[in-house]
C-alpha cells in the first residue's frame, strides 16, 4: 500500500510536471508519422504521468479522479476504437485496416484518409496501453486490497 507522506516538494513538482508529461505524450503520438513515436510510446508516457501522481500523492486521491471503472472502460474502449476502424474498412469494401477506403465517409482524399486512419488506430492503442499499465500498477500497489 502506498501511504501518503505529505512531502510538499514532491507534490509541487508532480503537480508542475504532470501536465507537461501528458502534453509530451500527445506530441509523441502525433509525431509518430514522421519520427520515432506513436501510440505505444505515448501511452507509456500517459501511464507514467498517472503513476507519478500515485507515487507523489496516494492511491485513494488518484483513483478518485481516475476511477477503476473508468480504467476498465478505457481498456476496452481503446481496443474498440482499433477494431472498429478496422471493421469499418471492411464494411466500406476494403480489407481489414485498409484505411484508404475511409475517404468514402471522410471529406478528404485516399492518401489523407490513410494518414487519419493510422492516427485513429494509434489513438486507440494509446488509450489501451495507458489504462492497462495504470491498472497493473494499481493492482501491484494496492496489495490486493481493492
Amino acid at each position, binding site marked *: 500500500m502506498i501511504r501518503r*507522506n505529505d*512531502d510538499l*516538494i*514532491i507534490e509541487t*513538482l508532480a503537480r*508542475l*510536471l504532470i501536465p507537461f508529461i501528458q502534453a509530451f505524450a500527445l506530441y509523441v503520438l502525433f509525431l509518430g508519422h514522421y519520427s520515432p513515436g506513436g501510440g505505444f510510446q505515448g501511452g507509456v508516457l500517459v501511464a507514467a504521468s498517472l503513476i507519478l501522481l500515485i507515487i507523489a500523492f496516494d492511491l485513494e486521491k488518484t483513483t478518485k479522479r481516475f476511477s477503476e471503472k473508468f480504467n476498465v472502460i478505457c481498456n476496452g474502449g481503446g481496443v474498440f476504437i482499433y477494431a472498429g476502424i478496422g471493421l469499418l474498412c471492411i464494411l466500406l469494401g476494403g480489407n481489414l485496416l485498409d484505411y484508404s477506403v475511409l475517404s468514402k465517409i471522410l471529406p478528404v482524399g485516399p492518401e489523407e484518409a490513410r494518414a487519419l486512419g493510422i492516427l485513429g488506430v494509434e489513438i486507440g492503442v494509446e488509450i489501451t496501453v495507458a489504462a492497462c499499465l495504470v491498472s497493473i500498477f494499481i493492482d501491484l500497489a494496492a496489495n490486493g486490497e481493492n
Partner: protein
Amino acid sequence: MEIVTIIFVLGGLFFFFAASIGLLRFPDFYARMHATGKGDTLGGFLIILGLAVYNLFHGGHGGFDLASILTSVKIIFIAVFIFLANPTATHAVFKAGLDSGVVPWTKEGSK
C-alpha cells in the same frame, strides 16, 4: 562557436567526475547522495547546454536556420526537465532513507 561547446562539455565532465569521486569516497548514504545529486544535475545541464550550442551552428541543414533553432530549443527543454526532476528525485531518496532509519555518519562513529 566550437570553443563555447568545448568549455561547456568539459565543465560538465568535471562536475560528473567530482560527483563520481564523491560517490566512491564519501562515508555514508547521505553524503554520497549530496555529492551525486548536485554534481549530476549541474554536469548534465552543462553537457546538454554545450550540445544545444553545437547543434545551433552545425545541426539542421548545416547552419543557423529554423530547424536547428527548433532542435536546440527541444534540447533546452530536456535541460530544464533535468534541473527540475533531478534534485527532487534526490530529495525523495533522502527522505525515504531518513524514514527507513538510515543513521547519519558522525565523527565519533555511528552508535
